[in-house]
């Protein structure tokens, strides 16, 4: 995803000299091409994330759109107050970019596990948050955030779902994408783990269970309507995120339902429940370890469908024909 982010940003920078890329000394070889092509639109600020966001704010105030690139927690938590007070409060065109969402850097240990960033970024006012699920979304989200006024957060993942875009599909910030249509459960996923949700949905077909799968590529502003439709039209909701279950996508879906006075017939949050992971491993390994891989998602859905079916035989199904893939 980071390569597609850089490709897209390169295209944007060719047309728009106000596009600027900062890194806090990360992105070995990934950013070289950009740096060479745009020496006046690129800066490695050194290992100083607080300074990076402050600098970016100062430059954004004078008309630039500044992307601030680093690994998960470094570009978010290390400089959280600069993001809040400097960038967000001034509605500065600062685009915080974190590579390595979730367990992308699984083997590197907890310092590199970005598993609370969405909850924390979500709480900030004046913040737009995009979490692409596949490569197309990564490029589209980059484009969309560059065009969105104010402070934004782009969470990039090492993993990505197989290509999901339809011909001539238009990407819209704040609008969930329906990747699969189905009736029994709606799987709402954010980020590269969308791939696991799709895999789970595919495997469930054999058991006669059909899933609607939404890619919730924008966490803020949030597509509450898509959630409410999922409540009304399908047999329940399972959220899927490579992130703590506290305050992320699952929480957001639950809040949305409570606020709207609707209730999914069944509901489960698939996400990280363990807190810190002191064991390490590949992204796939850690997903499996913490019950977030395709198998675990499928199991959760199957359990919910069998438990929920006597009480809520999903009579309200109104499948729209437009969204199927």
């Amino acid at each position, binding site marked *: 995803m980071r390569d597609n982010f850089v490709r897209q940003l390169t295209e944007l920078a060719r047309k728009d000299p106000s596009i600027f890329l900062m890194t806090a000394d990360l992105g070995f070889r990934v950013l070289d091409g950009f740096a060479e092509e745009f020496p*006046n639109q690129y*800066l490695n*600020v*050194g290992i*100083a994330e*607080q*300074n990076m*966001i*402050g*600098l*970016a*704010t*100062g*430059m*954004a*105030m*004078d*008309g*630039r759109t500044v992307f601030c690139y680093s690994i998960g927690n470094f570009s978010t938590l290390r400089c959280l*107050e*600069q993001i809040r*007070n*400097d960038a967000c*409060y*001034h509605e500065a065109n600062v685009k915080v970019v974190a590579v390595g969402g979730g367990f992308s850097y699984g083997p590197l240990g907890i310092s590199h596990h970005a598993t609370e960033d969405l909850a924390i970024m979500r709480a900030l006012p004046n913040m737009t948050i995009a979490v692409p699920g596949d490569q197309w979304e990564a490029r589209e989200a980059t484009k969309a955030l560059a065009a969105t006024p104010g402070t934004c957060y782009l969470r990039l993942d090492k993993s990505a779902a197989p290509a999901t875009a339809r011909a001539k599909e238009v990407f819209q910030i704040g609008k969930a994408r329906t990747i699969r249509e189905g009736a029994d459960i709606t799987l709402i996923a954010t980020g590269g783990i969308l791939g696991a949700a799709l895999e789970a949905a595919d495997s469930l077909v054999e058991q006669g269970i059909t899933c609607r799968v939404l890619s919730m590529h924008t966490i803020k502003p949030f597509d509450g309507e898509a959630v409410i439709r999922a409540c009304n039209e399908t047999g329940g909701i399972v959220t899927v995120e490579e992130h703590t279950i506290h305050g992320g996508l699952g929480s957001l879906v639950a809040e949305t339902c409570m606020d709207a006075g609707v209730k999914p017939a069944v509901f489960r949050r698939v996400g990280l429940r363990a807190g810190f992971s002191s064991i390490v491993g590949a992204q796939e390994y850690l997903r499996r370890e913490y019950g977030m891989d395709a198998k675990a998602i499928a199991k959760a859905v199957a359990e919910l469908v069998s438990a929920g079916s006597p009480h809520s035989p999903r009579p309200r199904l109104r499948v729209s024909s437009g969204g199927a893939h």
Partner: protein
Amino acid sequence: MEQNTAPTLLVRKESSASAELALRIRKHAVRMTNLGGSSHVGSVLSMADIVAVLYSEILKVDPGNPTDPRRDRFILSKGHAGAGIYAALAESGFFSTELLDKHCADGSVLSGHVSHRGVPGVELSTGSLGHGLSVGAGMAYGAKLDSRDNRAFVLMSDGECDEGSTWEAAMFSSHHKLDNLVAIVDYNKIQSLAPVSETLGLEPFADKWKAFGWSVAEIDGHDHTSLYAGLSTVPRTAGKPSCFIAHTTKGKGVSFMEQSVLWHYRTPRGSEYDEALNELDSPV
């Protein structure tokens, strides 16, 4: 045109504009903290002369067009002294001085720590220390990229130099030769709970800035002639950011507030309020 320091100094001795502005800032600060029941009057009195010289003589800003891209940028990084900037801006014509009465009042936009929303002329909202120099450096860096000749002035507190982010910005600014950036440290030697020397000593303070690649001058932060002479001749060294360590007295101008940690917090009320205004009107 004033080309060098000496004639500038001679000219300045005749000018009383900055002295008048400093007095007004001080009186506003006492009144605003009284009305608002708020803190940090000592911090405003400490920096009043620096701010007065900046707004009356140094900063190229236009109250009629506060967002003119060619303007100099001024950042109050020691945001707790917000009352002083509101007063300076109002007295400079950015908004009505009547608004100052609402400082810290319910529903007011004039927060204790400086905020830009609804307040023309405020470049950056601060209040958490260690933010301003980075943003100022970003403004200075952007100006260089755009070949604009405006400057960024950042007024900081001494206590603020405890923050690591201050030194991130300091390192960055000299590395990138931001000679359009000016840091002024209001060195009143008292921080939040105790003297700086007893909390986290900054000395050798000038040497620290020099070691970080800045062109440094130590000046009397209450002497308008020295302030003008220094601030009007930036950059001090081509290719280097300028740092002025302004030696000041916390609470300057009100004898019982001077050099006192108490007046970092205490609101002037009753006889203290009257006495403070009397002293400012007829200095001893």
